[in-house]
């Protein structure tokens, strides 16, 4: 049965805000922690000041509705508040922590990877850790090497962590709702360049299942798996390719852990060609992981080598021209497709 759901235009940032609000309304154990996510200081006369809503304004307005007991401004200490979120999750709350930039994960990796991700395993399945860690990724705003990485590949490598990489406002809302409702550690990677992106977003509180890829554009000639903001780049490339008579099928995995292998393999079985577009660094990455999976399980369906279009094996440069060259462009995607199609 297809249920028509009403939609309206909103930005990626507003869609995330809406998902947080819905989750907090439906479940009183959902609490938010992070730097400047409420705004103002912890002083009585500023209680209703909402200056920030986080550095990008994503949590704007939530403190007014839910109060400072559920929207917690924390000290600038990732080790502290991420640890607090993981521990709160283990003891009955359903926290959503904001790690301002993923590049800071080094400060709190023990809490995420050696504690949260292993609780269920260490306690024989009796413990859960329903924490969601929202974090910004992506180059493109001249934020320099320490605030511009993607690094979701690092978390995809680790068992016990789910990795979500929404590419549209609608996906951001639906996937965040599922992430918060999920009983495992979920890393939710928000691409900072997409915050202003507008799109149709359904009303209501329906989540999008984790582990289900989305075909963003159907085609028969080549499969392009694109992650996060790279979906937008791939869609632009598809327009150019269509004008040359090449119909690209663009698959957005939406979550890297779990990975919807079936959808990718089925598409490659149809097109016999695969290009993977990933803004993360290329070594031991989501792109190489997907390429290896297809080479292993779909070898006999391939008519051409698997092509990777990724960032180089360097930190993100600050220089705007270099930064622009760093991020995979529609032109590079078109070139890669032409090589094999």
């Amino acid at each position, binding site marked *: 049965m297809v249920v028509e759901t009403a939609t309206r235009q909103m930005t990626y940032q507003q869609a995330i805000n809406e998902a947080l609000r819905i989750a907090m309304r439906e479940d009183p154990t959902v609490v938010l922690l992070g730097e400047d996510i409420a705004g103002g200081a912890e002083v009585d006369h500023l209680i209703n000041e909402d200056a920030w809503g986080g550095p990008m304004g994503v949590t704007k307005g939530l403190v007014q509705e839910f109060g400072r007991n559920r929207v917690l401004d924390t000290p600038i200490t990732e080790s502290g508040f991420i640890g607090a979120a993981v521990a709160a999750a283990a003891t009955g709350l359903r926290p959503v922590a904001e790690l301002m930039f993923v590049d800071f994960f080094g400060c709190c990796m023990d809490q995420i990877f050696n504690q949260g991700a292993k609780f269920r395993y260490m306690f024989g399945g009796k413990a859960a850790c329903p924490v969601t860690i929202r974090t910004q990724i992506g180059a493109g705003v001249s934020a320099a090497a320490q605030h511009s990485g993607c690094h979701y590949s690092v978390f995809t490598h680790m068992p016990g962590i789910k990795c979500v990489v929404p590419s549209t406002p609608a996906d951001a809302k639906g996937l965040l709702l599922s992430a918060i409702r999920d009983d495992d550690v979920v890393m939710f990677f928000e691409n900072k360049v997409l915050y202003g992106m507008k799109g149709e977003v359904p009303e209501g509180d329906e989540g999008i299942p984790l582990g289900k890829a989305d075909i963003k554009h159907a085609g028969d000639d080549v499969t392009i798996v694109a992650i996060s903001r790279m979906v937008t780049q791939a869609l632009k490339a598809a327009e150019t390719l269509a004008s040359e008579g090449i119909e690209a099928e663009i698959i957005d995995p939406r979550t890297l852990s779990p990975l919807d292998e079936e959808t990718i393999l089925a598409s490659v079985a149809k097109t*016999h060609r695969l290009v993977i577009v990933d803004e993360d660094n290329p070594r031991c990455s989501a792109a190489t992981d997907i390429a290896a999976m297809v080479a292993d399980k779909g070898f006999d369906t*391939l008519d051409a080598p698997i092509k990777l279009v990724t960032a180089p094996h360097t930190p993100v440069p600050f220089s705007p021209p270099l930064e622009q060259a760093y991020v995979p462009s529609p032109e590079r995607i078109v070139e890669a497709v032409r090589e094999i199609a």
Partner: protein
Amino acid sequence: MPTIVTMPKWGLTMVSGTVTGWSHEEGDTVTEGAALLTVETEKAVDDVEAPASGILRKIVAPTGSEVPVTGPVAVIVAPDEELSDEALTALLATSAGPAATAGAGQQAQRPARESRKAARDASGRVNASPAARKRAGELGIDLATIEATGPGGRITSEDVERAAASVAATAAAPRSEQVTLDNGNTVSVLVAGPVDAPETIVFLHGLGGSQSTWANVLGNFAETYRVAAVDLPGHGASDKPASENGNYAITSLANAVAQVIEKLELSPAIVVGHSLGGAVALQLALERPKLLRGLVLVDSAGLGPEISDDLLDRVEATPSRDEARRLLELFFQNPRFILDRGIDELHAARSAPGADEAVKAIAAQAFSRSGQQVAFLDQLNRLEVPLLIVWGELDRVVPARHAMAASIALPTAWLEILEGVGHVPQIEAAPAFTAIVRDWLESLPRP
């Protein structure tokens, strides 16, 4: 929805047909299945039935016009359906074939890549993609024979499919095979149809006939099935040895067919035998059951004592055009099928060196004035394959009661009697004949 009536494709080689008459005029009410027009081809003349009930809105091909197969000849509309002249013209334009409409409003087409010899590495290994390698293995195609279109001279799975389609098309195209028998004589066989067809059908004609007796039905069958129409020894384009050494005994003819089936790798085949060919088919099915998957007997010899004296008179007479005409008059119930061309063809066949001797020798083996010498009725229960019996109700050569007797002797047989039809249903009632055989084939259990 208007229905476009198109020129049917009857024979394997039929490219067009000439409209020789219309039984209805524009504006008449027509009924689905009723004869609408008559079409003549090189080989035959037959009715084309209305594919739908309604009003005959437009006759596109008036009497006398020649129309290529699948080309439009008329348009039928529903009784209350309005179809303007403009809409009619547009409809006919689209029916001219898919090639005429393709290209309009389509998206950019990728220019076809040039195909070239596949690249090889130093060791001589052909550059083929994993998908191409796998598909070539499945289809049993040698990669070395495939042209490459992929970057760097790589064979892609598409290249394999293209090569396979071309091989299949070559194999499916009708061709004449000359099979050399163990005794050195050759037998001519017309082979057509897809190699990977679900069934292979071997057709055997009657006394004095040839492959051409199946001309009206082979084209239809070859769309779905592998078909092989045999010229029995002494007939058509096959060798016509002297009548000594038992060359024309029914067992010898059956043995020749067995060798054809083995040498052309047609086994297990559905064997369809008409008239005397039916007796040959029965002999084969009883002696070499493993070569067959099913048996179809059409107005067959061997299932009862009676045989027309008229036929024996025609066999004994010296060949002439008049004799040929009398034979066709005996065969066909509907005089429409007695064409000058058919008389000429039959006479020419009988006048070929050795042909008359062969006919007389076979007739002497199979028939006598006291009745048929071939008798399989009491052996039908030994058949190991499914049996279909098709008969013309008004057959004056071998009476239709032989079909009844056979169906009583073998109650599992599928029996079809064609009303108002004479000795040669595959010509006189070709559409009904193909429909019956197809229904029966589809009812067979899959091997």
